[in-house]
């Protein structure tokens, strides 16, 4: 086989594999436009003729379980928590690196250790405490996510702060900059590559998180994943599959559009969490 022929074979294989990887998502899109009775009887048919439901699923499915409110809540929690995590964890990591000693080492160790602990180990006690200090509401989720996100975020920031030349900060000090202006004018801008990684990793996690908001907020203050799960918990015959398809699409859409803009950052960011080790 010549080089060109080999390449064609590779392209064909890759194209087939891509189709296979995209098919499950495509299937949801197809069924979102199908009237709900045909979704269970004929999931693989294209929505033509009788089956076509237009935007009916989106209209009915989304209004029924308070899904729009759930989207609003999820957006609010995700955006604010990510902003808080990106800022406060950067401050914390910089402080710990620049004040070496036993306390800093202990704190850093505790943050890193928390990454190893699976959620079921602390799910009951953490939920209890969060409830006790009255943080079981939408805005209360922001400090809660700061606590849960601190481990990985401080780990990533610390690795990066260690590579920053301290001379820059010393020069700023000589020029009369205080601690706060040194951090916000000099250090934080330099941290932006890691800040992007931290924002992406935490954003994906918080947007998709199900168990924590389910336990803390319950079904009164549903987030998107909780709303989807609740919609499916109805008696099995009565589940509105059409509405579910519409919800699934709205749960994926924000991530997908974000991904199209920043694919490179996202792939690098998400894998950075693992490879840095």
């Amino acid at each position, binding site marked *: 086989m010549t080089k060109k022929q080999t*390449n064609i074979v590779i392209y064909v*294989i890759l194209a087939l*594999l891509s189709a296979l*990887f*995209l*098919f*499950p998502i495509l*299937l*949801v899109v197809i069924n979102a436009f199908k009237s709900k009775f045909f979704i*269970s009887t004929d*999931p*693989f048919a294209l929505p033509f003729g009788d089956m076509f439901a237009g935007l009916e699923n989106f209209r009915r499915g989304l209004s029924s379980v308070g899904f729009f409110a759930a989207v609003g809540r999820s957006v609010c929690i995700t955006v604010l928590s990510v902003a808080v995590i990106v800022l406060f964890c950067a*401050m*914390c990591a910089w*402080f710990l690196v620049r*004040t070496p000693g036993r306390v800093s080492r202990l*704190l850093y160790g505790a943050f890193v250790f*928390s990454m*190893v*602990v*699976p959620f*079921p*180990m*602390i799910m*009951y*006690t*953490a939920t*209890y*405490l969060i409830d006790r200090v009255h943080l079981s509401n939408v805005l209360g989720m922001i*400090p*809660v996510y*700061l*606590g*849960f996100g*601190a*481990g990985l975020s401080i780990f990533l920031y610390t690795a990066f702060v260690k590579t920053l030349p301290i001379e820059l900060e010393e020069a700023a*000090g000589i020029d009369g900059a205080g*601690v*706060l202006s*040194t*951090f916000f004018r000099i250090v934080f801008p330099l941290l932006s590559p890691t800040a992007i990684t931290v924002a992406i990793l935490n954003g*994906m996690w918080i*947007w*998709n998180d*199900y168990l924590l908001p389910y336990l803390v907020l319950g079904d009164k203050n549903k987030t998107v*994943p909780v709303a*989807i*799960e609740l919609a499916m918990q109805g008696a099995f015959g009565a589940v509105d*599959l059409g509405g*579910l398809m519409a919800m*699934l699409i709205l*749960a*994926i859409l924000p*991530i997908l559009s974000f*991904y199209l803009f920043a*694919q490179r950052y996202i*792939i690098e960011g*998400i894998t950075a969490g*693992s490879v840095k*080790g």
Partner: protein
Amino acid sequence: MKAGTLKRYFGIFVLPTLLCFLLVFVIPFVMGIFLSFTEFSTIESATFVGLANYKLAFRAGDGFLRSLGFTSLLALAVVAAVNLVALALALLLTKRIRFTSLFRGVFFLPNLIGGIVLGYIWNLLLGGILSYFGLDITYFASLGFLGLLLLSVWQLSGYMMVIYIAALGAIPKETEQAALVDGATPFQLLRYVKLPQILPSIAVCVFLTLTNTFKMFDQNLALTQGAPGRKTEMLALHIFRTFYGRIGWQGVGQAKGVMFFIVVAVLSGLQLYFTRQRKEKI
């Protein structure tokens, strides 16, 4: 900046994060260990019972051991399947061809989707296929196993692929060329030149897949809900149900949580060990 001056700013720089961290992690963790030796239905009513909870967790018919077995078996299958697929994808994408970033983007895409959504997507897909045979994913435990395996391959392969692409890209070109000059076949090139050089990355990916599968919850809940019976219930879901499904069993749930933590911690410790080894080699 002098460390002494900086230390006065502890309250602004560290305290906000530290307080939240203490609240949702440190205190719950310590409380969790303590409560695993007590019986309670509310935390205020906890009474010390020694190791009774741990014994109850292993009692026949409880399902803890079964879910541990199911999770381990699934994790082994997922590790093998995901890493084979990921490595194959990475090898295809490191050939000198165009559109690699497009293909990479497609294979990585399922990673971005949340577990609950993933579970329902595959519920629809597998339910549709199985209904042609008059079956449903909850008919046999083996169908649930297969479903979770397929879902995991779909979700995790792209992630591991990215790590393998980076590793394959870091192999010095000279070694490959030298092997080709010596007349190595493509298989020999893979077996004796490429694989040995990416061995550390394989170790990382194996452990990442392993811990990921062990901690799986959302996908399990959305795809099979543990059905039929509780035969496809994985560890995280099993512990969740011990806590919230059986009144008075919270202590047992907590004991299971501690054991779950130990399993994951050992796996993570092994991972760290292999990662350190890789660094020392470089």
